[in-house]
């Protein structure tokens, strides 16, 4: 039986975590993710969970302790944003290379400097090559639903990789929306009990974790990680399918919105997809064939499926809420362009940097993007393939 409620994105994720009742949660506060451990600490204080909550002295230590706990045989997670994630950078790689299925509730925020507490994706994009599965949400409901599916994906025997559940700072983390929650019992039976194969606190068999490994084995270890990532796509789909049976809410690798017959498409990640859908609805009323591909799973990157979904589109705007400083676009731009190239796509594509440091995205902005795509089609020229949207003149 579903329960209807009104929650902020942070409350929704904290609520999912209360229902999951993980074993260990080390955390250090940073805006805008602070509320997640804060709500959780009150669950601990009132006996609503029996998790070991460890209020550590830094984000480096929250990820280090999560790694220790996960290696020890516990279901562990932490939460952070921005510089907190940057401070964990070394540990992200270690978590992944140790094949630890731990979770990170990430509330996306711009990296310093200048110091800025608002949303963009520069934090998680910096971690895109760290070996973590990355999943993004458009709204509070998706943040909640993704969190509930997280451990099922990362703990799967074919995957065994850490998972980052991302949502947009303030835009969803602090905005209160209507949300549909599952019952505690439904969540607990869906997530199940964590039964690791090998772990430090296994009285039957001690183990060593975190070896020194040089030229003779390092490369095999890395290739094995890639194998886990390769399997993750199917596991994400299987878990989503099972979740749909429970909740009635369907998820895939990405969401295709009015894309089927579209000649122009936007590809993007996160909350601005909601704004883009409004722009699409307005333009569709005028008979314009426009659509959206909203990325849910960014790592692993479902390149083939994305290229397939875009195969009939004539012009594409790939929207990056992070700079790449490659001087030819952002990270999503690079990934999508490569996918299109491999699929021998002839679509015209441009990469637009937008929304940095919380810069507002309006419906009119997205209407303009579709207008610009139309110009590209008319002129049969992609023009500048690396642009900025919404800059002060």
């Amino acid at each position: 039986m579903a329960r209807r409620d009104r929650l902020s994105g942070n409350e929704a994720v904290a609520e999912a975590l209360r229902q999951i009742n993980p074993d260990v949660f080390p955390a250090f506060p940073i805006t805008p993710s602070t509320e997640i451990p804060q709500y959780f600490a009150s669950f601990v204080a009132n006996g609503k969970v029996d998790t070991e909550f460890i209020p550590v002295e830094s984000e480096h230590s929250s990820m280090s302790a999560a790694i220790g706990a996960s290696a020890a045989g516990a279901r562990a997670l932490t939460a952070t944003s921005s510089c907190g994630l940057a401070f964990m950078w070394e540990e992200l790689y270690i978590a992944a290379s140790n094949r630890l299925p731990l979770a990170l509730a990430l509330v996306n925020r711009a990296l310093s400097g200048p110091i800025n507490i608002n949303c963009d994706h520069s934090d998680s994009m910096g971690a895109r090559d760290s070996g973590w599965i990355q999943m993004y949400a458009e709204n509070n409901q998706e943040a909640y639903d993704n969190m509930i599916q997280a451990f099922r994906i990362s703990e799967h025997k074919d995957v065994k990789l850490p998972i980052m559940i991302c949502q947009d700072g303030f835009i969803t983390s602090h905005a209160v929306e209507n949300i549909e929650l599952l019952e505690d019992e439904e969540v607990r039976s869906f997530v199940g009990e964590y039964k690791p194969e090998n772990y430090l606190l296994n009285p039957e068999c001690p183990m060593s974790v975190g070896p020194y490994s040089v030229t003779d084995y390092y490369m095999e270890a890395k290739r094995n990680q890639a194998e886990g990532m390769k399997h993750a796509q199917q596991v994400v789909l299987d878990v989503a399918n099972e979740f749909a049976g429970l909740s009635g809410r369907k998820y895939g690798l990405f969401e295709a919105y009015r894309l089927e017959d579209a000649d122009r498409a936007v590809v993007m990640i996160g909350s601005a997809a909601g704004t883009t859908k409004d722009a699409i609805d307005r333009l569709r009323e005028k008979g314009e064939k426009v659509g959206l591909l909203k990325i849910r799973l960014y790592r692993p990157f479902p390149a083939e499926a994305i290229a397939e979904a875009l195969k009939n589109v004539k012009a594409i705007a790939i929207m990056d809420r992070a700079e790449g400083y490659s001087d030819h676009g952002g990270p999503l731009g690079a990934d999508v362009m490569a996918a299109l190239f491999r699929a021998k796509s002839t679509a015209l594509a441009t990469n637009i940097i937008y929304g940095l440091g919380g810069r507002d995205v309006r419906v009119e902005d997205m209407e303009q993007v579709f207008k610009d795509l139309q110009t590209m089609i008319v002129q049969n020229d992609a023009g500048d393939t690396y642009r900025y949207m919404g800059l002060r003149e």
Partner: protein
Amino acid sequence: MAYNFKETMNKPERLAPGHRMCAGCGGTIAVRNVLRGLHEGDKAVIGNATGCLEVSTFTYPYTSWQDSYIHNAFENAGSTLSGVEGAYKALKRKGRLNETYKFITFGGDGGTYDIGLQSLSGAMERNHDMVYVCYDNGAYMNTGIQRSSATPMYADTTTTPVGSQSSGKPQNRKDLASVIAAHDIPYVAQTTFVQNFKDLHIKSEKAIYTPGAAFLNIMAPCPRGWRYNTPDIMEICRLGVETCYWPLFEVIEGKWILNYEPKQKLPIEDFLRPQGRFKHLFKKGNEHLLEAFQKEVDRRWDELLFRCSR
């Protein structure tokens, strides 16, 4: 807790031979003897900061560790074991583990005094039931003898080389045991390899079996970095204690206790002379450096006596 040398030394090894630490390494001696403080049959998870000990004892696919062991990175042995101990508490509470475990983590002075200080401080302040053992050889030996904040004044290291304008490291060493004692944890002790390992053994056992956080600072000479005759390690340690360079003490629940007072304090030259890293101090014209070193040892010793109400 009567100490029987033969019995203690005959306990089963928890760090298997065949590892790649140097012959005569003080770090290995520290580890083997701390682990002898565990009661037979008791389980443990061992943590380790990156350093010589880690890269030489757990080179994939081989491990020397009989107990469960985790190395994470250089600067986070404290927080990593915090997480392991947290998992232990959670699994016990949830009825998924019946056995009793002890938690011991090792770090060199680089991973402990310097890059890992924040993580160590946090773990101590939160009073996790664990022992943090620093095997202090007074420099970053794994990367090739660079100075640390544990390096004694005037030591010749690769980042404080002796030269025409330099007499070695200009600064005094950090007194980490005092820093950790100021965290008001249940047990802090400083020791080294003396008295047939009795002092080290008793302190290890106390540290492991005292509930809450414990810190052991063990002077563990490095023959490569200190440049003494390798078989003389026990003599070097004895001289460290007899000159009052490395006093043996405990801080139990905030109370400072001096464990050993030399009948006749030896001059610091006796400790410095056998070590190549202090060779320059014995050159003509450097007498004032030896005087300054002695003055610093005296000052710290007097401070310790005061703390111990002596």
